Protein backbone atom coordinates (compact mmCIF):
# COMPACT_ATOMS: atom_id res chain seq x y z
CA UNK A 1 0.00 0.00 0.00
CA UNK A 2 1.58 3.20 -1.16
CA UNK A 3 -0.54 5.57 0.96
CA UNK A 4 0.92 4.27 4.21
CA UNK A 5 3.07 6.59 6.28
CA UNK A 6 5.84 5.71 8.69
CA UNK A 7 6.67 6.95 12.16
CA UNK A 8 8.48 5.55 15.19
CA UNK A 9 7.36 4.41 18.62
CA UNK A 10 10.26 4.13 21.03
CA UNK A 11 12.60 4.08 18.08
CA UNK A 12 10.85 1.23 16.29
CA UNK A 13 9.37 2.02 12.89
CA UNK A 14 5.61 1.62 12.61
CA UNK A 15 3.33 1.90 9.59
CA UNK A 16 0.08 3.81 9.72
CA UNK A 17 -2.79 4.94 7.55
CA UNK A 18 -3.16 8.72 7.39
CA UNK A 19 -6.00 9.86 9.60
CA UNK A 20 -5.33 7.23 12.25
CA UNK A 21 -4.56 8.21 15.79
CA UNK A 22 -1.29 7.16 17.35
CA UNK A 23 -3.18 4.63 19.43
CA UNK A 24 -4.95 3.06 16.45
CA UNK A 25 -1.70 2.73 14.55
CA UNK A 26 0.10 1.35 17.60
CA UNK A 27 -2.67 -1.19 18.22
CA UNK A 28 -2.41 -2.44 14.66
CA UNK A 29 1.32 -2.74 14.97
CA UNK A 30 1.00 -4.73 18.19
CA UNK A 31 2.32 -1.98 20.43
CA UNK A 32 0.18 -1.52 23.52
CA UNK A 33 -0.23 1.97 24.92
CA UNK A 34 -2.05 1.92 28.28
CA UNK A 35 -5.51 3.57 28.23
CA UNK A 36 -8.75 3.77 30.19
CA UNK A 37 -11.22 6.12 28.52
CA UNK A 38 -10.34 4.98 25.00
CA UNK A 39 -12.47 2.19 23.55
CA UNK A 40 -12.23 0.73 20.07
CA UNK A 41 -15.91 1.31 19.28
CA UNK A 42 -16.05 4.88 20.56
CA UNK A 43 -14.80 8.24 19.36
CA UNK A 44 -11.60 9.41 21.05
CA UNK A 45 -12.23 11.34 24.26
CA UNK A 46 -8.91 12.06 25.92
CA UNK A 47 -9.96 12.35 29.55
CA UNK A 48 -7.98 9.78 31.53
CA UNK A 49 -4.59 10.87 30.11
CA UNK A 50 -3.11 7.43 30.80
CA UNK A 51 -2.14 7.14 27.13
CA UNK A 52 0.06 10.23 27.37
CA UNK A 53 3.09 9.85 25.11
CA UNK A 54 5.80 12.26 24.03
CA UNK A 55 5.43 13.27 20.40
CA UNK A 56 8.57 15.01 19.20
CA UNK A 57 9.21 15.80 22.89
CA UNK A 58 5.76 17.28 23.51
CA UNK A 59 3.18 15.46 25.64
CA UNK A 60 0.08 14.33 23.75
CA UNK A 61 -2.72 11.83 24.32
CA UNK A 62 -2.13 8.92 21.96
CA UNK A 63 -5.90 8.36 21.67
CA UNK A 64 -6.60 11.79 20.19
CA UNK A 65 -3.37 12.71 18.41
CA UNK A 66 -3.30 11.85 14.70
CA UNK A 67 -0.20 10.25 13.23
CA UNK A 68 2.02 12.15 10.85
CA UNK A 69 4.87 10.90 8.76
CA UNK A 70 8.21 10.81 10.53
CA UNK A 71 6.88 11.67 13.98
CA UNK A 72 8.84 10.32 16.90
CA UNK A 73 6.67 8.86 19.66
CA UNK A 74 8.03 7.88 23.07
CA UNK A 75 5.84 5.65 25.19
CA UNK A 76 7.84 3.25 27.36
CA UNK A 77 10.25 5.66 29.03
CA UNK A 78 10.68 5.82 32.79
CA UNK A 79 9.33 9.36 32.82
CA UNK A 80 6.10 8.39 31.07
CA UNK A 81 5.72 5.20 33.10
CA UNK A 82 5.88 7.33 36.25
CA UNK A 83 3.24 9.74 34.92
CA UNK A 84 0.95 6.81 34.10
CA UNK A 85 1.41 5.27 37.53
CA UNK A 86 0.64 8.65 39.09
CA UNK A 87 -2.57 9.00 37.07
CA UNK A 88 -3.72 5.50 38.01
CA UNK A 89 -2.95 6.22 41.66
CA UNK A 90 -4.93 9.47 41.46
CA UNK A 91 -7.96 7.51 40.24
CA UNK A 92 -7.55 4.97 43.04
CA UNK A 93 -7.57 7.63 45.77
CA UNK A 94 -10.20 9.83 44.16
CA UNK A 95 -12.87 7.15 44.23
CA UNK A 96 -13.51 4.46 46.82
CA UNK A 97 -12.18 1.34 45.15
CA UNK A 98 -12.71 -1.67 47.39
CA UNK A 99 -11.26 -4.32 45.12
CA UNK A 100 -11.71 -7.18 47.61
CA UNK A 101 -15.49 -7.26 47.21
CA UNK A 102 -16.00 -5.65 43.80
CA UNK A 103 -17.66 -7.94 41.26
CA UNK A 104 -15.51 -6.47 38.53
CA UNK A 105 -12.29 -7.43 40.28
CA UNK A 106 -10.07 -9.45 37.97
CA UNK A 107 -11.81 -8.00 34.92
CA UNK A 108 -11.38 -4.35 35.85
CA UNK A 109 -9.25 -2.22 33.55
CA UNK A 110 -8.25 0.24 36.25
CA UNK A 111 -7.06 -2.58 38.47
CA UNK A 112 -5.36 -4.28 35.53
CA UNK A 113 -3.40 -1.14 34.75
CA UNK A 114 -2.33 -0.97 38.37
CA UNK A 115 -1.01 -4.52 37.99
CA UNK A 116 0.65 -3.89 34.67
CA UNK A 117 2.36 -0.74 35.89
CA UNK A 118 3.45 -2.40 39.13
CA UNK A 119 1.45 -0.28 41.58
CA UNK A 120 1.58 -1.82 45.07
CA UNK A 121 -0.30 0.99 46.81
CA UNK A 122 -1.05 4.59 45.88
CA UNK A 123 1.37 7.12 47.33
CA UNK A 124 -1.44 9.69 47.51
CA UNK A 125 -3.84 10.00 50.45
CA UNK A 126 -7.29 8.45 50.04
CA UNK A 127 -9.95 11.13 49.72
CA UNK A 128 -12.84 9.00 51.05
CA UNK A 129 -15.40 11.28 49.40
CA UNK A 130 -19.01 10.20 49.66
CA UNK A 131 -20.56 8.86 46.49
CA UNK A 132 -23.98 7.36 45.88
CA UNK A 133 -25.13 3.95 44.77
CA UNK A 134 -28.21 3.75 42.54
CA UNK A 135 -29.88 0.35 42.47
CA UNK A 136 -33.29 1.59 41.30
CA UNK A 137 -33.14 -0.23 37.97
CA UNK A 138 -34.30 -3.86 38.00
CA UNK A 139 -31.32 -5.16 36.02
CA UNK A 140 -28.52 -2.65 36.54
CA UNK A 141 -26.86 -0.88 39.44
CA UNK A 142 -24.47 2.02 39.48
CA UNK A 143 -21.88 2.55 42.18
CA UNK A 144 -20.41 6.03 41.82
CA UNK A 145 -17.68 5.11 44.29
CA UNK A 146 -16.02 3.18 41.49
CA UNK A 147 -16.59 5.65 38.67
CA UNK A 148 -13.47 7.02 36.98
CA UNK A 149 -15.36 9.57 34.82
CA UNK A 150 -14.11 8.09 31.55
CA UNK A 151 -17.44 8.84 29.83
CA UNK A 152 -17.61 5.44 28.16
CA UNK A 153 -21.23 5.13 29.33
CA UNK A 154 -22.01 8.69 28.23
CA UNK A 155 -20.50 8.10 24.81
CA UNK A 156 -21.75 4.54 24.33
CA UNK A 157 -25.30 5.60 25.06
CA UNK A 158 -25.10 8.39 22.48
CA UNK A 159 -22.87 6.81 19.86
CA UNK A 160 -23.83 3.14 20.00
CA UNK A 161 -27.20 2.81 21.73
CA UNK A 162 -28.83 5.81 20.07
CA UNK A 163 -29.98 7.00 23.50
CA UNK A 164 -28.89 9.74 25.82
CA UNK A 165 -29.07 8.11 29.20
CA UNK A 166 -25.90 9.52 30.78
CA UNK A 167 -24.19 12.88 30.99
CA UNK A 168 -21.81 14.62 33.38
CA UNK A 169 -22.99 17.20 35.87
CA UNK A 170 -20.94 19.45 38.14
CA UNK A 171 -17.31 20.31 37.68
CA UNK A 172 -13.90 19.71 39.22
CA UNK A 173 -13.78 17.09 41.93
CA UNK A 174 -17.60 17.29 42.19
CA UNK A 175 -18.10 16.14 38.63
CA UNK A 176 -20.21 13.00 38.34
CA UNK A 177 -22.30 10.95 35.95
CA UNK A 178 -26.00 11.82 36.00
CA UNK A 179 -28.99 10.18 34.32
CA UNK A 180 -31.57 11.52 31.93
CA UNK A 181 -34.29 11.49 34.56
CA UNK A 182 -35.40 13.72 37.41
CA UNK A 183 -35.23 10.84 39.84
CA UNK A 184 -32.98 7.85 39.25
CA UNK A 185 -31.59 5.35 36.80
CA UNK A 186 -34.72 3.23 37.01
CA UNK A 187 -36.71 6.03 35.41
CA UNK A 188 -34.54 6.19 32.27
CA UNK A 189 -34.84 4.16 29.09
CA UNK A 190 -31.55 2.36 29.77
CA UNK A 191 -31.56 -1.35 29.10
CA UNK A 192 -29.35 -4.13 30.41
CA UNK A 193 -28.34 -4.94 26.84
CA UNK A 194 -27.07 -1.39 26.17
CA UNK A 195 -23.46 -1.03 25.18
CA UNK A 196 -23.28 1.71 27.80
CA UNK A 197 -23.52 -1.01 30.45
CA UNK A 198 -21.07 -3.38 28.83
CA UNK A 199 -18.39 -0.80 28.11
CA UNK A 200 -17.81 0.39 31.68
CA UNK A 201 -14.12 -0.38 32.31
CA UNK A 202 -14.55 -0.61 36.08
CA UNK A 203 -17.22 -1.87 38.46
CA UNK A 204 -19.24 1.34 38.40
CA UNK A 205 -22.00 -0.01 36.15
CA UNK A 206 -22.85 -3.65 36.71
CA UNK A 207 -25.56 -6.07 35.79
CA UNK A 208 -27.56 -7.42 38.68
CA UNK A 209 -27.80 -11.14 39.26
CA UNK A 210 -24.35 -11.93 37.91
CA UNK A 211 -22.08 -11.67 40.92
CA UNK A 212 -18.68 -13.31 40.99
CA UNK A 213 -19.29 -15.52 38.01
CA UNK A 214 -15.71 -16.36 37.05
CA UNK A 215 -13.45 -18.06 39.63
CA UNK A 216 -10.24 -16.41 40.74
CA UNK A 217 -7.43 -17.51 38.47
CA UNK A 218 -9.64 -17.62 35.39
CA UNK A 219 -10.52 -13.95 35.20
CA UNK A 220 -9.34 -11.72 32.38
CA UNK A 221 -6.32 -10.17 34.01
CA UNK A 222 -5.41 -12.85 36.57
CA UNK A 223 -2.47 -14.20 34.62
CA UNK A 224 -2.21 -12.02 31.50
CA UNK A 225 -1.50 -8.31 31.78
CA UNK A 226 -3.94 -5.94 30.13
CA UNK A 227 -2.79 -5.23 26.58
CA UNK A 228 -1.50 -8.76 26.02
CA UNK A 229 -4.04 -9.26 23.23
CA UNK A 230 -2.68 -6.27 21.38
CA UNK A 231 0.92 -7.29 21.97
CA UNK A 232 0.11 -10.75 20.63
CA UNK A 233 -0.57 -9.15 17.24
CA UNK A 234 3.08 -8.27 16.99
CA UNK A 235 4.05 -11.91 17.60
CA UNK A 236 1.62 -13.03 14.90
CA UNK A 237 2.91 -10.44 12.47
CA UNK A 238 6.45 -11.74 12.86
Amino acid at each position, binding site marked *: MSDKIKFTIDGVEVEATPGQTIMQAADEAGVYIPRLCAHKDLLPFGSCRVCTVMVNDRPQAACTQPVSAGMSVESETEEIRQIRVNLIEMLFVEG*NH*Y*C*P*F*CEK*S*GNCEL*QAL*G*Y*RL*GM*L*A*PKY*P*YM*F*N*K*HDVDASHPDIYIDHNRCILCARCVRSSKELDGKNVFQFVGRGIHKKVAFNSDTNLGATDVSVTDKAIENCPVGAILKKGVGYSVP*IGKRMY*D*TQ*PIGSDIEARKATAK
Partner: protein
Amino acid sequence: MAKPKIATASLAGCFGCHMSLLDIDDRILTLVDLVDFDKSPVDDIKKFTGRCAVGLIEGGCCNEENVHNLQYFRENCDILISVGECAIMGGIPAMRNTIPLKECLDEAYLNGPTVYNPSGNIPGDKELPLILDKVYPCHEVVKMDYHLPGCPPSADLLWEALVALLENKPMDLPYEVIKYD
Protein backbone atom coordinates in the same frame (compact mmCIF):
# COMPACT_ATOMS: atom_id res chain seq x y z
CA MET B 1 25.11 -14.63 64.34
CA ALA B 2 21.66 -14.10 65.79
CA LYS B 3 18.76 -14.52 63.44
CA PRO B 4 16.78 -11.40 62.54
CA LYS B 5 13.45 -11.08 64.30
CA ILE B 6 10.01 -10.67 62.83
CA ALA B 7 6.88 -9.37 64.52
CA THR B 8 3.31 -9.36 63.26
CA ALA B 9 0.07 -7.68 64.27
CA SER B 10 -3.55 -7.77 63.23
CA LEU B 11 -5.23 -4.39 63.75
CA ALA B 12 -8.64 -3.74 62.13
CA GLY B 13 -8.36 -6.83 59.97
CA CYS B 14 -9.82 -10.32 59.78
CA PHE B 15 -6.66 -12.39 60.34
CA GLY B 16 -6.91 -13.48 56.74
CA CYS B 17 -3.47 -12.03 56.02
CA HIS B 18 -2.02 -14.06 58.88
CA MET B 19 -3.71 -17.14 57.45
CA SER B 20 -2.08 -16.38 54.14
CA LEU B 21 1.30 -16.20 55.83
CA LEU B 22 0.73 -19.70 57.17
CA ASP B 23 -0.24 -20.68 53.64
CA ILE B 24 3.41 -20.66 52.58
CA ASP B 25 3.19 -24.35 53.53
CA ASP B 26 6.46 -26.17 54.04
CA ARG B 27 8.41 -23.01 53.30
CA ILE B 28 7.55 -22.05 56.85
CA LEU B 29 10.32 -24.42 57.92
CA THR B 30 12.79 -22.43 55.84
CA LEU B 31 11.38 -19.25 57.31
CA VAL B 32 11.94 -20.48 60.84
CA ASP B 33 15.54 -21.18 59.87
CA LEU B 34 15.89 -17.64 58.61
CA VAL B 35 14.14 -15.70 61.39
CA ASP B 36 12.83 -15.73 64.92
CA PHE B 37 9.27 -14.64 65.59
CA ASP B 38 8.89 -11.97 68.26
CA LYS B 39 5.63 -10.24 69.23
CA SER B 40 2.93 -11.88 67.19
CA PRO B 41 -0.45 -13.62 67.52
CA VAL B 42 1.29 -16.63 65.97
CA ASP B 43 3.38 -17.30 69.09
CA ASP B 44 1.28 -15.18 71.49
CA ILE B 45 4.26 -13.06 72.56
CA LYS B 46 2.59 -9.90 73.90
CA LYS B 47 5.57 -7.59 74.33
CA PHE B 48 8.61 -7.01 72.19
CA THR B 49 11.57 -8.90 73.56
CA GLY B 50 14.01 -6.86 71.51
CA ARG B 51 14.46 -4.89 68.34
CA CYS B 52 12.87 -6.48 65.27
CA ALA B 53 14.03 -6.33 61.67
CA VAL B 54 10.58 -6.55 60.16
CA GLY B 55 7.07 -5.86 61.38
CA LEU B 56 4.14 -7.14 59.35
CA ILE B 57 0.94 -5.19 59.92
CA GLU B 58 -2.45 -6.50 58.95
CA GLY B 59 -5.48 -4.21 59.18
CA GLY B 60 -5.93 -0.48 59.42
CA CYS B 61 -6.59 1.64 62.50
CA CYS B 62 -10.21 1.86 63.56
CA ASN B 63 -9.68 2.47 67.28
CA GLU B 64 -7.19 3.84 69.78
CA GLU B 65 -5.74 0.45 70.57
CA ASN B 66 -4.89 -0.10 66.89
CA VAL B 67 -3.07 3.23 66.85
CA HIS B 68 -1.24 2.46 70.07
CA ASN B 69 -0.20 -0.96 68.86
CA LEU B 70 0.94 0.37 65.50
CA GLN B 71 3.02 3.08 67.16
CA TYR B 72 4.53 0.41 69.43
CA PHE B 73 5.51 -1.56 66.33
CA ARG B 74 7.01 1.52 64.69
CA GLU B 75 9.18 2.09 67.76
CA ASN B 76 10.42 -1.49 67.77
CA CYS B 77 10.79 -2.47 64.12
CA ASP B 78 13.34 -1.37 61.55
CA ILE B 79 11.04 -2.05 58.64
CA LEU B 80 7.26 -1.90 58.79
CA ILE B 81 5.11 -3.43 56.07
CA SER B 82 1.44 -2.83 55.37
CA VAL B 83 0.13 -6.28 54.54
CA GLY B 84 -3.19 -6.42 52.71
CA GLU B 85 -5.87 -3.99 51.64
CA CYS B 86 -7.03 -3.07 55.16
CA ALA B 87 -3.57 -1.94 56.22
CA ILE B 88 -3.09 -0.18 52.91
CA MET B 89 -6.40 1.61 52.54
CA GLY B 90 -8.62 0.63 55.45
CA GLY B 91 -10.33 -2.13 53.50
CA ILE B 92 -13.86 -3.23 54.29
CA PRO B 93 -13.92 -1.43 57.67
CA ALA B 94 -13.16 1.82 55.84
CA MET B 95 -16.50 1.63 54.05
CA ARG B 96 -17.75 3.63 57.01
CA ASN B 97 -15.40 6.48 56.19
CA THR B 98 -17.92 8.28 54.03
CA ILE B 99 -20.58 8.09 56.75
CA PRO B 100 -20.43 10.24 59.90
CA LEU B 101 -19.44 8.21 62.97
CA LYS B 102 -22.59 9.11 64.89
CA GLU B 103 -24.75 7.72 62.10
CA CYS B 104 -22.73 4.48 62.11
CA LEU B 105 -22.96 3.97 65.86
CA ASP B 106 -26.63 4.93 65.98
CA GLU B 107 -27.38 2.36 63.30
CA ALA B 108 -25.30 -0.32 65.03
CA TYR B 109 -26.46 0.21 68.62
CA LEU B 110 -29.72 2.15 68.54
CA ASN B 111 -31.68 2.18 65.30
CA GLY B 112 -30.71 -0.96 63.39
CA PRO B 113 -33.61 -3.34 62.65
CA THR B 114 -32.14 -6.15 64.77
CA VAL B 115 -30.99 -4.02 67.69
CA TYR B 116 -32.30 -4.73 71.20
CA ASN B 117 -30.83 -2.08 73.46
CA PRO B 118 -33.19 -0.94 76.23
CA SER B 119 -30.50 1.25 77.82
CA GLY B 120 -30.29 3.39 74.66
CA ASN B 121 -26.58 3.80 75.27
CA ILE B 122 -23.70 3.39 72.92
CA PRO B 123 -21.21 1.02 74.61
CA GLY B 124 -18.44 2.91 76.39
CA ASP B 125 -16.99 0.36 78.79
CA LYS B 126 -13.34 0.85 79.68
CA GLU B 127 -12.55 -2.58 78.31
CA LEU B 128 -13.63 -1.41 74.87
CA PRO B 129 -11.14 0.69 72.96
CA LEU B 130 -12.53 4.03 71.85
CA ILE B 131 -13.44 4.21 68.20
CA LEU B 132 -11.76 6.67 65.80
CA ASP B 133 -13.66 9.12 63.61
CA LYS B 134 -12.70 7.04 60.58
CA VAL B 135 -10.55 4.05 59.70
CA TYR B 136 -7.02 5.19 58.98
CA PRO B 137 -4.70 3.41 56.57
CA CYS B 138 -1.53 2.51 58.51
CA HIS B 139 0.71 4.91 56.59
CA GLU B 140 -1.45 7.83 57.73
CA VAL B 141 -0.58 7.03 61.35
CA VAL B 142 3.08 6.00 61.13
CA LYS B 143 5.59 5.79 58.35
CA MET B 144 5.25 2.46 56.52
CA ASP B 145 8.21 1.23 54.49
CA TYR B 146 6.49 -1.20 52.11
CA HIS B 147 3.03 -2.18 50.95
CA LEU B 148 1.99 -5.70 49.95
CA PRO B 149 -1.48 -5.62 48.42
CA GLY B 150 -4.13 -8.31 48.32
CA CYS B 151 -7.09 -9.58 50.27
CA PRO B 152 -5.21 -11.43 51.43
CA PRO B 153 -1.83 -11.01 49.75
CA SER B 154 -0.98 -14.41 48.34
CA ALA B 155 1.40 -16.66 50.25
CA ASP B 156 3.76 -16.42 47.29
CA LEU B 157 3.80 -12.63 47.46
CA LEU B 158 4.51 -12.68 51.20
CA TRP B 159 7.21 -15.28 50.73
CA GLU B 160 8.91 -13.52 47.80
CA ALA B 161 8.83 -10.18 49.57
CA LEU B 162 10.12 -11.51 52.89
CA VAL B 163 12.94 -13.46 51.32
CA ALA B 164 13.99 -10.48 49.23
CA LEU B 165 14.00 -8.27 52.32
CA LEU B 166 15.90 -10.74 54.48
CA GLU B 167 18.46 -11.39 51.77
CA ASN B 168 18.68 -7.67 51.03
CA LYS B 169 17.78 -8.16 47.39
CA PRO B 170 15.47 -5.99 45.26
CA MET B 171 11.85 -7.18 45.18
CA ASP B 172 11.28 -8.61 41.73
CA LEU B 173 7.68 -9.65 41.99
CA PRO B 174 6.10 -11.73 39.21
CA TYR B 175 2.92 -10.37 37.60
CA GLU B 176 0.66 -13.05 39.02
CA VAL B 177 1.39 -12.32 42.67
CA ILE B 178 0.33 -8.67 42.72
CA LYS B 179 -3.43 -8.56 43.27
CA TYR B 180 -5.68 -6.12 45.06
CA ASP B 181 -8.27 -8.76 45.94
